[in-house]
């Protein structure tokens, strides 16, 4: 259940990477404000290089901000008690190659100071959860990409964390692997965990998240629930069969119709009053109506619109970024 309790708060986060060769620096994250509520699944989406991983690494204290602050459970990440409540799945599952899943989970559980008996129980539970019982003895380097990701998720869960931070959890996975990982994330969500997810696979984000933040060139250019970001449906789509070409041409000439293509009639949403008249015209033109839908824009559409500065809440910020 989502509550108003803020688990993660980022205020004015800016990260500039400087080196000897780039003294001016490269701004990876620019004045980012973001908060995640308890029980929420929040996804940060954006193209490669948009600052998602930098943001996560700053939250975890792996790198240090140039400006701004990050608090988790109201405290600094340097407080060990905070890290006891966090689980982190790094991108590309970087774990020790020479050890098996069983050994790895035992090691990571040991870092939380669990007893041998508790570690044994945990290893069993987690291997079962991620479906790795049969391959428990397989060295990590011999695991398939999907197995590696599932083990990496298991290591992030050894402390039964309240906040789960996942960096590109389905990166490089085949469709079956992506499905398995998505199922596991949904299971974590069902268990009430707060999840911060970074991804550029928009379909998986759509499936699991409550709120989305779209990052582009280091800035958060849009944020909200999918419904808020997508807005109201803009079209009515009528799928037909047997529609005569002449009737299709007549339909396409109407103001209410945006286009007719391969038996699919697209109407402007604002012309909803004319729906019956269009359906009658389809019927007269020899067509049979299969389905009438009012599809919402997908996250992909929202994302493209956001980086063009067309999502209302984000338009002002995005136009600055694009300039």
């Amino acid at each position, binding site marked *: 259940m989502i509550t108003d309790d803020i688990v993660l708060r980022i205020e004015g986060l800016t990260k500039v990477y400087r080196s000897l060769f780039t003294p001016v620096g490269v701004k990876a994250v620019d004045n980012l404000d973001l908060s995640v509520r308890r029980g929420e699944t929040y996804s940060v989406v954006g193209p490669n290089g948009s600052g998602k991983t930098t943001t996560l690494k700053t939250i975890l204290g*792996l790198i240090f901000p140039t400006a701004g602050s990050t608090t988790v459970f109201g405290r600094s990440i340097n407080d*060990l008690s905070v890290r006891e409540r966090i689980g982190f799945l*790094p991108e590309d599952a970087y774990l*020790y190659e020479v050890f098996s899943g069983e050994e790895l989970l035992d090691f*990571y559980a040991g870092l939380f100071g669990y007893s041998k008996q508790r570690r044994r129980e945990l290893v069993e539970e987690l291997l079962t959860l991620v479906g790795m019982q049969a391959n428990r003895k397989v060295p990590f380097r011999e695991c398939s990409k999907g197995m590696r990701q599932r083990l990496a998720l298991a290591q992030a869960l050894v*402390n039964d964390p309240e906040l789960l931070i996942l960096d590109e959890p389905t990166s490089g996975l085949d469709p079956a692997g992506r499905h398995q990982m998505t199922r596991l994330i949904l299971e974590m969500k069902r268990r009430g965990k707060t999840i911060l997810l970074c991804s550029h696979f928009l379909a998986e984000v759509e499936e699991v998240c409550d709120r989305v933040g779209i990052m582009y060139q280091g800035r958060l250019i849009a944020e909200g629930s999918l419904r808020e970001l997508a807005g109201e449906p803009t079209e009515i789509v009528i799928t037909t069969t047997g529609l005569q070409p002449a009737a299709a041409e007549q339909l396409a000439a109407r103001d209410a119709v945006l286009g007719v293509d391969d038996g699919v009639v697209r109407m402007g949403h604002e012309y909803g009053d004319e729906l019956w008249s269009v359906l009658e015209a389809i019927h007269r033109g020899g067509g049979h109506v299969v389905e009438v839908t009012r599809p919402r824009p997908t996250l992909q559409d929202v994302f493209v619109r956001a980086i063009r500065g067309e999502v209302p809440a984000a338009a002002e910020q995005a136009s600055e970024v694009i300039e």
Partner: protein
Amino acid sequence: MTPQLLFLIGLFIVVVVLTLTRKAWAPAMGHALPSVWRIAKITVAEARRRRVLQAVVVLVVLILVSMTFFAYLSPKEQSRMLINNGLAAITAFGILLSIFVGAFLVPHELESRTVYAILAKPVRRFEFVLGKYLGALIVLAVIIAVMTAVLIGVLMLQDKLVSDLPDSAFDPNIRGVVFASAMSYCAVAVLTALIVLISTISSTTMTIISAFIIWAVGSMQNTINDLASQAEIPATRLLLKMIYVIVPKLQNFDYRNDVANYLPISYLGGLDAIVQGIGYTIVVLILASIFFNDRQV
């Protein structure tokens, strides 16, 4: 006042201060020690599975065993040659291994990004550095112990083979060999700490190059000190003095010649070198922890 006495007084003061302030540090240490131990254990386990280390140990064992074939030497010369070359092999391979193990210890974790999953857990950065160092120390201790055991085995075998000869004067000098090997291990421990420090601020390649230079300089510190005293240009003198102070005096750990030539061993001198080595290692590890704490990973 001898360095040994100074060490004992210093140790006493440290124990008293730690006892009086235990309420402040005990909870933190209570957390740190298990974490350091876990990271050390995984470092050892990882090294055990690396074939390169196993191959090096096998190579050294073969070298040590092959030295028994110098049967044309007199028994006395044989024992001298076996001890000298055996200890040289142990020291050289110990140092080489310490350079390669030490140089990859932290950078490997950064490059393979395995450090992410660890530092995201309740592990402080200094615990990570100390854990890695302790793990390397255990690995190097086992390797040097194995090499020493093989050398002792070779010496005892040779002793048995030549004992029937009429004027056999073969002396395996086991106690001396063990002492010299232990001192080599101390040199390796000091050098590894310094390598870990360098690796926290530079790349693996730079660390390896620096480690070889430090080894070379550290092995001729007495010469550098002499040169510093004789230098006429103040800047050169200052530079040489700085090198003498900063670089560990690895030469002080070298007892190979004394043992091979059956000279009396100065155990107090050894203790002196160990005390200095411990102090040096502590300072270096504190610096390594500070640098790694500020490093972006």
